[in-house]
């Protein structure tokens, strides 16, 4: 094991930090939010040029020789920038599903276009009754047409294509559907973090092609889901740390009762608890990344443990950061409220703490890890 960034990873991390500070300050983000719908095409092109969209793929998969580690590095650093573009939805969830499919010329084409920013895919998998990859899919493929309702497809309003899960004669499949396909409609919305998503209504939609069926489809979904989970958890770690720094700086200057707030032990101890939550979250994200190499049941157990911890920590840190700021923390014009909103969304995204605790419990009946690490 080695927990230090190598030279390339450090350069990547610095690269993201630099971009954040130079090109996407809080003020620039505020201006962008007031005029836009969550995606700036020029910014998406920049992400592609900087190599971030394909950073988590090996060269074999059509990426730049990276892995989940690179995605973790990017997401942790990118977290405090609070970008609203669908990095997680398109460049991690959808892209990792595509990359996990059996080889085909089509797959390679989709991956390449996504990595270079020429195509934005979105995953239309969740349904009202299911938030986790191995849950039941009710959407049907019947005589070549897809019928069903998908919820919370991240980045769907910006998407060119959808990866749609559907069942045909009891067999799960993944299908490629064009945004402009007949009988496809979107109900778009904006999340509390100012990113955009949509419910996707498929009322007899003809897919462009089947991407995979059966075990291949299930495995690709699993891969995409686990990678997306890990990515938002890494993002949460970055935001938690930024939140704690911001709050600490505020406590050191804000005066009440003739002294700065950092003199009050009740507040010091709350901050210590927030730091502990953030540090333990970072630790378990490493475990989530390591889990990419685990057998299936153990990997599920590992990523659910990760998400349950991070969901809880994100809530704790976000809530308390606003509390320690007092009234200013409630305002739109100050960053902590925006960190809070993104942490709030991450806590519930891809399954809440409860969902993952339940998944661990169910999984534990089948599997009990002996000496998980070390």
């Amino acid at each position, binding site marked *: 094991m080695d927990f230090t960034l190598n030279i390339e990873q450090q350069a990547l991390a610095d690269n993201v930090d630099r971009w954040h500070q130079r090109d996407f300050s809080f003020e620039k983000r505020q201006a962008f939010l007031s005029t836009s719908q969550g995606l700036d095409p020029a910014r998406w092109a920049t992400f592609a040029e900087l190599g971030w969209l394909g950073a988590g793929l090996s060269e074999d998969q059509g990426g730049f020789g990276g892995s989940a580690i690179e995605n973790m590095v990017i997401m942790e650093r990118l977290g405090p920038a609070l970008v609203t573009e669908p990095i997680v939805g398109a460049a991690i969830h959808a892209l990792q599903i595509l990359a996990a499919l059996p080889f085909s010329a089509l797959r390679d084409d989709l991956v390449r276009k996504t990595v270079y920013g020429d195509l934005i895919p979105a995953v239309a998998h969740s349904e009202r009754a299911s938030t986790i990859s191995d849950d039941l899919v009710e959407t049907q493929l019947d005589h070549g047409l897809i019928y069903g309702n998908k919820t919370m497809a991240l980045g769907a309003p910006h998407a060119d294509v959808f990866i749609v899960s559907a069942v045909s004669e009891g067999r799960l499949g993944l299908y490629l559907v064009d945004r402009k396909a007949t009988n496809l409609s979107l109900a778009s919305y904006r999340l509390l973090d100012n990113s955009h998503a949509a419910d996707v209504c498929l009322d007899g939609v003809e897919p462009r092609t089947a991407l995979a069926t059966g075990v291949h489809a299930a495995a690709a979904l699993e891969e995409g889901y686990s990678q997306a989970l890990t990515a938002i958890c890494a993002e949460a770690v970055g935001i938690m740390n930024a939140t704690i720094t911001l709050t600490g700086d505020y406590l050191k200057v804000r005066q009440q009762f003739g002294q700065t707030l950092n003199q009050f032990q009740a507040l010091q101890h709350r901050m*210590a608890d927030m730091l502990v939550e953030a540090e333990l979250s970072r630790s378990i994200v490493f*475990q989530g*990344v390591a889990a990419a190499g685990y057998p299936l049941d153990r990997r599920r157990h590992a990523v659910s443990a990760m998400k349950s911890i991070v969901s809880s920590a994100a809530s704790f840190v976000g809530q308390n950061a606003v509390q320690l700021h007092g009234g200013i923390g409630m305002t739109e014009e100050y960053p902590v409220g925006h960190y809070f909103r993104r942490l709030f969304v991450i806590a519930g995204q891809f399954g809440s703490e409860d969902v993952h605790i339940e998944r661990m419990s169910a999984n534990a009946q089948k599997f009990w890890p002996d000496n*998980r*690490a070390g």
Partner: protein
Amino acid sequence: MNFEVSADDEAFRAEVREFIAAELPDDIARRGAHDYHSAYEDVRRWMRILNRKGWAAPHWPEELGGTGWPGIRKFIFQDELRRARAPVLDRCGLDLLGPVLAAFGSKAQQERFLPRILNCDEWWCQGFSEPNSGSDLASLSTRAELKGDHWIVNGQKIWTTEAHYADWMFALVRTDSTGKPQAGISFLMIDMKSTGITRRPIWTIDEGLTVNEVFFEDVRVPADQLVGELNRGWDYAKFLLGHERTGNAVVSHTKRDVEQVRHLASVARRGTGRCIDNPAFAAKLARLEAEVIALEWSVLRVLHTDGHTGSGEAVASLLKLRGSELSERAALLAADALGEYGLVAMPDPDGLHNMYPHSLSPPINDDEAIGVTAKAMFRRSMSIYGGTNEIQRTLIARTILGL
């Protein structure tokens, strides 16, 4: 970055596991599954077995009996000991005094004391806390005055773990009252057989005996039993407490506890099914397990690099804070898994830890269940000793967060 366990470390774990399976005596292993403190004779037998293998004190310098293992190997070794429920060794001698003597003791002191610690010929206790010096340790007032070639010690220590059978004590004593409190403290080794020492056992709410009061009345200590320099004791104490930054996370203990809870909850009935099938219980167990994983990976981070924010001292605070909380919760959950039997006083069937020797025993025949409620009571102390968790929070706020 790379999160794979190396093949060499995997092989090392297998080697340790094999050794313990072959060498840990069956009767000790059976008592080890009980949740009382390890019995003195069990510890002594087991330490001698480890010492013959050269594994009694892996963290000591090699020339003094250590193994030269890197941090991760020492962690794996501990992890396997806990997994096998082997007796918990003499922590005061091995983990606390040993490194201090190795770093600051004279050659004569090292030769006199260290081999006897390794072979458990002499058992040590730590004389730090006093009735009016708990969290505020530097205010301690037990004093030592040099008269000729002896120190004359007067005062009182409290919460002294295993003082009831310790042969020796290393103590912080006041040797100067003029300057800053920290600057007038020295580190002294005291023979517990000395005239003028009185021990009084303190039975704790687990009905067990681990801590004591120790009184000193004109106790004569040879001058050459001062460790290091006069009035540098506070530095040595800080070195001692900071020497092992990951051990106070007690993560291997708590991993073992989680396995125990899983076992107990799989056997115990609750309503019409098993305890483990109760969704509320299962959720608590899963949550605990997730937190233990996070703690373990925090320990791994410290062992492999020093990737944690802030200084080493603060990292130790973080691990101690969360580690003690999880340890307490694991013990409570084990009692919870026993249902109503989780409310029952459990005297040690081997009669080694009984405040009330003629007490009733509950009808429990599962070695893993025996002593669970005593543990649930004793573990309440985890967030108090070794620096209360409130002290740790203050340290984190000041050192890492700069508040």
